[in-house]
């Protein structure tokens, strides 16, 4: 839905995203403090993070390297020269009274991320920039009726903020953008991507314009969306709100808005008139950031295979578009699949991983990352199928037991006696018994009631507890019945 139709009008939806991703370094952007999530409040705070008088920032090169890698991962330009600026504003959880960020000369410019539009077609979203900045601390207002508290553990944690061009046209595209970008970050290991832990936060700029008009409408920025679901809900709400207002002839005011998860509505946080004048200027405590060719080359060289490259390879391996997409959409799934690929039949690998295992995990609300069955264990099961030790049908039961007990496929098959009966003699013996017991049906079949074949197969399988090799059963039954 790139447009919204109202009774009177049709508007095009225009969305730009700003995504803050925590760069996953051990220490902060300008100090040696740890960045571990969930630590005791104010236990990871250095003299620099708390802005003690006379303290100076020292740049963490690892964070810069990861930002550069991210730039290369989205095919952007990584600038050999960039500048850290101070963004000045007062808040209790901003100890310096300014945030060190990049304004005029960011480290990364340009770039592209491919997403799916609402029709399922590939769509390229152009990236404006990525800049590196430090996070603020956290204000806590709900611990006391009379006091507020400040936790500076996050103060100084490195972030990279990606800004897209206003090329996103629906809430669905916006959500998919975040998923795709998150996935890239996880592939290249520059951000954990866990939205619940605040490692990824999204602001959405939303505006409408009558279909066909070139100039943009006035936008509203929805701040701090912390899940793809909320991104979608917030944008949908905001689009409706703006469409209604425009229909009623109202002017959209440029605002910063917050999404209320409980009501599903966005509400005003501040109006344009109240917007801060951040008084950006180059931080005189830090020299301009100059990156050598060697540094940039190293970043480029350390880039692993990216989702789209993986997909192309999987298509070459004979995977369907759909299966390839499912696997690359999650770094952990792709890593899992890589451990199967080449070690067994590719089709079996796809079926048993994305069909059988994923289905079971989903039922238990688990992801591939916390699957109790490792790729090696699943491979063990697939091997048993490949070598005809068990049938696919029995394999499903074995997989269930593996999930339950955590045991190897081979062990379960052995202890439960599930080995497939492949011995023709043994199968013929059972067929004979079934034919004797169902003599009337045999006669009916022989007089032309072909449909009964399935009945005989079922009886044989039942008598063997499903262990008979289905191929052999089919073949031998046909011979016996037509004899």
């Amino acid at each position, binding site marked *: 839905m790139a447009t919204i139709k109202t009774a009177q009008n049709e508007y095009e939806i225009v969305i730009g995203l700003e995504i803050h991703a925590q760069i996953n370094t051990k220490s902060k952007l300008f100090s040696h403090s740890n960045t571990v999530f969930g630590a005791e409040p104010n236990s990871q705070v250095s003299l620099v993070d708390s802005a003690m*008088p006379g303290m100076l920032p020292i740049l963490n090169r690892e964070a810069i390297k990861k930002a550069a890698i991210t730039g290369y991962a989205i095919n952007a330009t990584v600038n050999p020269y960039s500048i850290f600026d*101070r963004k000045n504003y*007062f808040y209790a959880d901003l100890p310096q*009274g*300014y945030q060190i960020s990049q304004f005029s000369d960011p480290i990364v410019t340009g770039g592209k991320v491919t997403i799916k539009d609402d029709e399922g077609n590939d769509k390229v979203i152009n990236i404006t920039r990525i800049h590196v900045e430090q996070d603020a601390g956290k204000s806590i207002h709900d611990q006391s009726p009379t006091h507020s508290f400040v936790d500076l553990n996050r103060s100084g944690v490195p972030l990279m903020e990606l800004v897209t061009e206003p090329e996103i046209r629906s809430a669905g595209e916006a959500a998919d953008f975040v998923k795709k970008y998150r996935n890239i970050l996880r592939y290249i290991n520059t951000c954990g991507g866990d939205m619940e832990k605040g490692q990824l936060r999204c602001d959405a700029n939303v505006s409408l314009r009558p279909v066909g008009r070139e100039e943009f409408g006035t936008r509203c920025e929805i701040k701090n969306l912390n899940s793809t679901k909320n991104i979608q809900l917030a944008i949908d709400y905001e689009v409706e709100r703006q469409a209604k207002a425009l229909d009623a002839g109202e002017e959209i005011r440029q605002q910063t808005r917050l999404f209320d998860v409980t009501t599903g509505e966005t509400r005003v946080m501040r109006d344009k008139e109240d917007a801060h004048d951040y008084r950006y200027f180059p931080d005189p*405590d830090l020299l301009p950031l100059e990156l050598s060719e060697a540094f940039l080359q190293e970043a480029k060289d350390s880039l692993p295979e990216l989702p789209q490259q993986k997909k192309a390879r999987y298509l070459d391996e004979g995977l369907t578009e759909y299966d390839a997409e499912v696997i690359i959409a999650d770094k952990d799934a792709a890593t899992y699949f890589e451990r199967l690929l080449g070690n067994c039949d590719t089709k079996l690998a796809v079926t048993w991983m994305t069909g059988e295992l994923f289905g079971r995990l989903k039922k238990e609300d688990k992801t591939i990352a916390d699957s109790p069955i490792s790729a090696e264990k699943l491979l063990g099961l697939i091997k048993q199928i490949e070598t005809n030790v068990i049938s696919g049908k029995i394999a499903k039961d074995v997989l269930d037991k593996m999930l339950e007990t955590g045991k190897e496929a081979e062990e379960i098959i052995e202890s439960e006696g599930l080995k497939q009966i492949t011995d023709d003699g043994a199968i013929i013996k059972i067929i004979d018994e079934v034919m004797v017991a169902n003599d009337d049906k045999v006669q009916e079949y022989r007089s032309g009631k072909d449909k009964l074949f399935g009945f005989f197969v079922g009886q044989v399988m039942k008598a063997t507890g499903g262990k008979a090799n289905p191929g052999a059963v089919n073949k031998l039954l046909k011979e016996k019945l037509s004899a």
Partner: protein
Amino acid sequence: MSDLTKLTIAELKEGLLAKKFTSVELTKAYLENIKKANPELNAYVLVTEDKALEMAALADKNIAAGKARPLEGIPFAVKDLYCTKDIKTECCSHILDGFTPTYESTVTQNLWNDGAILLGKANMDEFAMGSTNKNSYRGNVVNPVKRAGEDTKLVPGGSSGGSAAAVAADLCAASLGSDTGGSVRQPASFTGLVGMKPTYGRCSRWGMIAYASSLDQAGHFSRSVEDSALILNSISSYDEKDSTSAQKEKEDFTAKLNNGLKGMKIGIASEYKMEGMNPDIEKIFDETVKKAESLGAEIVDISLPHTHYGAPTYYIISTAEASSNLARYDGVKYGLRECAQGDSLDDMYSKTRSAGFGPEVKRRIMLGTYVLSSGYYDAYYIKAQKVRRLFADDFNKAFSQVDAILTPTTPNTAFGIDEKLTTIEMYYNDVFTVPANLAGLPGISIPAGVDSKNTPIGMQILTPRFAETEMFRVAYALEQEIKFDRTKLNYR
């Protein structure tokens, strides 16, 4: 024994090593002087007597054991903007009430590592903003030097007024100041001392409370050029904790003291003769030039055409940086907090900062906030940065022709504490000193004579970045020729 307190570091070192006196005796002599003179001069805001005696005893041990370090047993005063571990550091501002750092600044740590002794924290203009030391929350400092036949209280200059007064009044052997726009060189000139500002990046700014980060640099006061070089030997260092610190090998800044001026080219810029300048200063300047010539230096006329823009450029850049640097004093983390039950965060900010900052600091924060605000940024801040580059160009051009530049340090001599100067007049005090800060150059002021009222006049020597050794060479040669006798000044 009272003579001890008038000696130079070089003389003190000799005496200490020859065991003519001990560091404890020396320290006690200074403490005695402080007790007598400080109530009137207000040079120290904190005297660390116990700590000083403890350090002196240790120094004596080291000397006795033959393990004397370069500044072993030499007592210093330290400007109140250097963070000193477990010792109150308030930058002479109400807003830092009771602030006691848990860390030691790199520059002071370097001094202690070399055996120096801390006598106390020196008074200063609040957050190093001022040229009179009248902007201190701890009260103004009185210049120990007075005019002949007059009892008018004179300013010691600023912002390192306490550090200057302490050396001039024999309340320490030497002292640390800091120089953002002339805050060491100008008070040195007003008190008849040697005052030196190193190249930007020569000394670490870590642990120095920031005023204007791109201009701030440590500096020091001494009674001789040799002492000045000895102190720089100790306080300069590359520091990985300061991104703007320069990666330079340690060098001996006394190496060329005796090399003389023969073969050196010294530049004289016509722009440093200002209208309305004290004619006595012009006279001493001309005399100093002649002395340099008589010592074999070639005098070269140069032009520094942007000199006139120094003060406005300086006041835009320094206040812009200050408005941001001082944002951290908000009542949340340390120092003063003015907040009543029911006050909002904004109320607390407003009350704390209104009560905590003095009028000059407020003026500069307002000015800095203004020049950075949207709509004015290009016209002021960006333009000032461009002019700043022109300054660097001026000097680059000049130093392609000469080895050093000689100028007066200030357009005036020490004035009365009660004399009324307009803000603009006050800001023009810095006109000869700010160019070195804008271009990051080293500069030194040496006493070169007196005016008609027997108050001292300083001359400034500037050299290219990181050419301090050459700078000391010129300063030393002139010092030996001028033979300024500070005991002939009139003291309170």
